């Protein structure tokens, strides 16, 4: 079965996030990207392929070089999504709310107010 790739799959992997981070600063060719990592060039190439399939990175073959560049439009979707979860405090307040609901239903069961 063919699985559809989406932008969230692209960022699910820490190496891919680092690649995105690198490319967000400047377009790079594959070798230059690979130099930043301890893993093999084919492994990097595979990550780039996934990023490309997710629509986050475009790859241009220029002579023997493959130039990789960020496609910002897709990524904006991610940053908007992450933005909603950005705050540590929000996590705390959410955690409080969750507990509050538990407490409320527990009290109801026990017939207390």
């Amino acid at each position, binding site marked *: 079965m063919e699985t559809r790739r989406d932008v969230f799959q692209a*960022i699910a992997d820490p190496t891919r*996030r*680092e690649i*995105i*981070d690198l490319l*967000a*600063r400047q377009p790079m060719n594959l070798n230059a990207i690979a130099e930043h990592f301890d893993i093999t060039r084919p492994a990097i190439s595979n990550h780039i392929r996934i990023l490309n399939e997710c629509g986050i990175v475009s790859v241009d073959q220029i002579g023997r070089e493959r130039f990789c560049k*960020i496609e*910002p439009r897709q*990524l*904006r979707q*991610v*940053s908007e999504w*992450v933005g909603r*979860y*950005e*705050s*540590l*405090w*929000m*996590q*705390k*307040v959410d*955690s*409080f*709310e*969750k*507990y*509050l*609901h538990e*407490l*409320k239903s527990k*009290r109801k069961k026990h017939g207390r107010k």
Partner: protein
Amino acid sequence: MAGNELAKRTLTLKKTFDAPIELVWEAWTQPEHIGRWWGPNGMPIKIVEHNFKVGGKWKYVMTMPNGSDFISHGVYSEIVKFEKIITSANFIPMTEGVEIRALFEKNGKKTNFTFSVVHPTEEYCRQQEKMGFYNGWGSAFERLNGYLKTQH
């Protein structure tokens, strides 16, 4: 200039809880409840001190899976029942010298809740805001956001 203006160094969250104010207040202020929600993802915490009165200290310790302690503590500076709690707070080692303001307002059977974190400076506020990003994606997404802003 207006760099130190209160609004610019404050992060604010607003919510309406689907619970009466009495219950919200209880859950927010009683140690047996605090222990259940204070830690992220239900991580247990130890309530070392919880002196819920103006001038009273609180200190909660969460032991991380790697054995190191994450300590949060502060001193209450204002408490008005069913209305507000203001406390200083330090979350060592991440956030220090902030003031937390929790405001409660009865809204029928619900409760309006406003949670503000006031930072000592605007700069610190921005830095903290960015640090709050999810699971260490922070720095990457921070740069990414900067990048995306230049694209339009």
